[in-house]
């Protein structure tokens, strides 16, 4: 087993194990805390996939911002005090079955499909190259996303603002 494989399996294990904690923990703060290693594991996978910029953004946004945001929301609502409260709804069993079936199906599809391996050399995905791609080929998406970002910024402020 090559070094890359070892690292891959390690990262996958970290990601998925943390993910299991996220979805199963009865303590919401544990779930939120477990998001961090899961996101960092995904970050590692990005680095393995030669996507360093995406990895950096992943850490900055997911691990650094979204997790903090989630923790803040938890603290501002009930601060994880709902230990005694039931955390799962009545369709937990069905949900588990569906999720498992979904995983099996996706894996079956992923392994069965004969993916055509693309030819071509992997370019160096530097921030500059990505920025050029954003501002040349994908300018419309870029602008659209920025508009969405602005709107959601204003929307979040408007919604969360306390009406006095």
């Amino acid at each position, binding site marked *: 087993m090559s070094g*890359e*494989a070892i690292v891959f*399996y390690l990262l996958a294990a970290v*990601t*998925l194990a943390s*993910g299991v904690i*996220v*979805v199963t923990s009865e303590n*919401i703060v544990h*779930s939120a805390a477990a*998001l961090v290693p*899961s996101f960092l594991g995904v970050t590692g996978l*990005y680095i393995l*996939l030669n*996507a360093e910029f*995406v990895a950096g*953004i992943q850490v900055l*946004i*997911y691990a650094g*911002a*979204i997790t903090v*945001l*989630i923790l803040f*929301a938890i603290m*501002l*609502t*009930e601060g994880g005090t709902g230990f005694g*409260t*039931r*955390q*799962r*709804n009545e*369709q937990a069993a069905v*949900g*588990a079955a*569906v*999720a498992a079936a*979904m*995983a099996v199906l*996706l*894996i079956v599809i992923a392994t069965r499909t004969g*993916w055509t*391996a*693309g030819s*071509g*050399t*992997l370019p160096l*995905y530097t921030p500059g*190259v*990505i920025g050029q*791609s*954003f501002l040349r080929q*994908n300018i419309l*998406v870029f602008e659209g*996303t920025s508009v*969405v970002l602005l709107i*959601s910024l204003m929307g*979040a402020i408007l*919604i*969360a603002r306390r009406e006095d």
Partner: protein
Amino acid sequence: MPGLTHYLVVSALLFALGLFAVVTRRNSVAILMGVELMLNAANINLVAFNKYVAPGAMQGQIFALIVITLAACEAAVGLALVLAAYRTLETVYVDEINLMKW
């Protein structure tokens, strides 16, 4: 050497975990966490396809970045909604937020 399928399998499992959280959790914040996991799974797919199926292209990573951006938007708005709901109804459990039901 891990290939495309390896990443897809990890992505599928992560997606299923996220789905499980979204479908079974009562706490709205936990549901948002599940959504984040699902988005991460999708991002792994995008980046992996970019590397293995279309190595010369940028779109996989571009879209992964856009997904991350939109995830940030979703988290911000979603959590703002959770806070607003909590202030009004004093609960974050989605099955108790049912003022408009029946």
